């Protein structure tokens, strides 16, 4: 019974560790990722004025409409792939060791003559040292011995290369650990802040956030006080840099330093990264009063124009009135931003241009200056305040360093596998009635076509040193 179980387990291990299985799984993975790629490109619209080319249209027509259903299949294939890599790894260790034993054995004349690269030629007396020296000069580790049957030599170059495939496969396991860590610890939140304000790192303080992760999702409670916004443009619509100057305090209120966060240079506080956001602009404070003296206060955000000629527009809905208010902000503060000086001519004062929208009917209601009010149809809109704002994104993901370490190993494994290819030489020098002769044979793991040329070249070089005329 026990034996039967062991045989069964052995069969499973053999099946799951088969290279053919990993090939099939890789193929499936390729198809599933292609499907994701198609769905990703369907989600974005073609640029204005362009029509999608035939290739993209054909690809899009291949994409099925419920990619989320394929997620399960994707994860199953991924899990099987990793399992396969693990078992294949075990098999590889055994195979590499077996090959190593073969390489570390001396060969006799008969077996040398069966190698795909072999040659026999007469050599001078005492050529043994010269043959060994020649191979050493060419980067080989050489071992030799003299026995009754004559001189035997084995030489190896790039021996560690045989472990490359194993290393390369094992890196997928590191990547998998990184991905699992990433999924279980990833948490991000988006926040907006004005100069002088302080943000405390707490789940409820974010404007938008992901769910708390199962691991390490606790509030860090560090504080970020915004000192200044440093926004600059190459010209209208072309951003030069977005930066926030902040004072950072830890959860106990200890000052950690005055720092600058900008695009591509996130801050790191207590294992959490804080990224500069791409939204900057102004927050207008409004007070709206109706004919029955009901007051409502609120804020409206206006982003700094991101395209040349774009306006700072926003729209609010006045509930219960069926009216939408379209507000366009003008402010001289825009012209104070580096690179946007030329916009100062259009933005000479701080005011809001007000338009009402009722169904398809748009009516311009005039402008309201900062600190003043505008009345129309029983409504009074008061422009109470204006302050700049900026944004940042807080991300924690403890899987990232593991994933990137996995990438480094992956690259190392690939380089070793493909460009540190083991080469083995064996030689035998025998004595005959006509004098000594050398039998030389060689093998390599990869690139056998060009190795044959290299072998021939090495043989002709060696002949110059030891050939008996």
């Amino acid at each position, binding site marked *: 019974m026990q034996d039967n179980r062991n045989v069964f387990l052995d069969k499973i291990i053999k099946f799951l560790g088969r290279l053919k299985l990993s090939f099939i799984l890789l193929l499936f993975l390729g198809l599933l990722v292609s499907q994701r790629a198609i769905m990703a490109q369907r989600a974005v619209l073609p640029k204005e004025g362009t029509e999608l080319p035939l290739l993209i249209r054909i690809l899009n027509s291949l994409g099925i409409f419920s990619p989320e259903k394929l997620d399960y299949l994707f994860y199953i294939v991924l899990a099987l792939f990793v399992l396969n890599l693990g078992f294949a790894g075990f098999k590889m260790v055994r195979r590499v060791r077996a090959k190593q034993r073969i390489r570390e054995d001396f060969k006799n004349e008969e077996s040398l003559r069966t190698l795909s690269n072999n040659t026999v030629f007469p050599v001078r007396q005492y050529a043994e040292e010269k043959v060994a020296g020649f191979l050493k000069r060419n980067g080989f580790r050489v071992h030799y011995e003299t026995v009754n049957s004559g001189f035997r030599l084995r030489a190896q170059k790039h021996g560690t290369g045989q472990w490359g495939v194993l290393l390369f496969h094992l890196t997928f396991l590191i990547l998998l650990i990184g991905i699992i860590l990433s999924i279980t610890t990833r948490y991000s939140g988006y926040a907006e802040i004005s100069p002088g304000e302080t943000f405390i790192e707490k789940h409820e303080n974010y404007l938008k956030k992901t769910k708390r992760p199962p691991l390490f999702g606790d509030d860090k409670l560090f504080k970020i006080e915004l000192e200044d916004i440093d926004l600059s443009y190459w010209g209208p619509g072309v*951003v030069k840099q977005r930066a926030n100057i902040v004072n950072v305090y830890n959860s106990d209120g200890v000052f950690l330093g005055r720092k600058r966060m900008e*695009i591509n240079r996130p801050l790191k506080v207590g294992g959490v990264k804080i990224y500069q956001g791409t939204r900057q602009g102004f927050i207008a404070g409004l007070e709206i009063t109706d004919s029955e003296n009901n007051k409502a206060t609120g804020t409206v955000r206006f982003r700094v124009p991101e395209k040349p000629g774009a306006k700072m527009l926003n729209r609010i809905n006045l509930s219960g009135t069926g009216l939408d208010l379209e507000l366009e902000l003008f402010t001289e503060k825009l012209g104070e931003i580096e690179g946007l000086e030329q916009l100062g001519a259009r933005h000479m004062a701080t005011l809001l241009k007000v338009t009402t929208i009722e169904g398809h009917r748009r009516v311009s209601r005039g402008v309201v200056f900062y600190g003043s009010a505008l009345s129309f149809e029983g409504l009074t809109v008061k422009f109470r305040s204006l302050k700049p704002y900026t944004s940042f994104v807080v991300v924690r993901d403890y899987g990232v360093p593991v994933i990137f370490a996995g990438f480094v190993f992956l690259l190392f494994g690939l380089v070793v596998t493909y460009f540190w290819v083991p080469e083995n030489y064996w030689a035998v020098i025998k004595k005959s009635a006509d004098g000594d002769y050398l039998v030389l044979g060689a093998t390599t793991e990869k690139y056998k076509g060009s190795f044959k040329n290299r072998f021939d070249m090495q043989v002709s070089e060696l002949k110059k040193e030891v050939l008996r005329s």
Partner: protein
Amino acid sequence: MTAVGFYWLAIIGYVLSSIAYSGGLAFSKNSFRKAGLFLAITGLLFHTVSLGIRWSLAGHGPYISTYEILSSNAWIAVLFFLFFQWKFKQFVNLGVAVMPLSFLMMGFALIGSQEARELPPTLQSAWLMVHILFAKLTVASMLVAVAMSGFYLLKKGKDDTKSGILSKVPAPEVLDDYSYRLIAFGFIALTIMVVTGAIWANDSWGSYWSWAPTQTWSLVVWLVYGIFLHGRITFKWKGTVSSWYIIFAFVFAIAAFFVIPYFVSGIHSAYMTD
């Protein structure tokens, strides 16, 4: 002299080099090949000066706009070819394909706007250069592998002793071998490109992978070439199967690097279409 002046001198160098390499192949004259090499190096020097001037004027490397991208593609193709020729002398005749392709690319680049554009903050990263360099190396090595596979398919089964252009090309098994090496090199370059892209994305917006179209298609290309390398080991693919696969796989690379970014909006497309 301006960047454009040196650019034109480079084009002239490449055109003359193409003629010389073609002469070398047609008439089996080494002197023609040597002239081809000299003219390619001279053209490359002019091209380097042109790119250098442009770099210093624009304040960033040649990777924004079609003009800069194609010009730097041609530069890296010639550099890659010269390195390859220096290392593996038997491939000298590849100049017949590489040099004309390079000057045609440079001519095509002139159709786009030559105006230097400023770098947006997301692209102001040292990772950008590494990412782009390896993207170019990926395409360059895979393109040369495609050329070798094409020569393999043409040469396979033909009598090597007969005269003719194909007799100047290395033996089929050597072509097969080097195309395999180039794909392995290209695969490593592609991996570095994907990895540096992920690191850069993580630095820029805190997410190393977002399943964006170009990003996902790069992964598809990675898997397509990964399947090839796997097939070489598992099923001992070589010769005809291997050559056809390399040509087939290149279609995916072209789609991912040149078609998708042009027609699907995203970080990779915003600066490529002008």
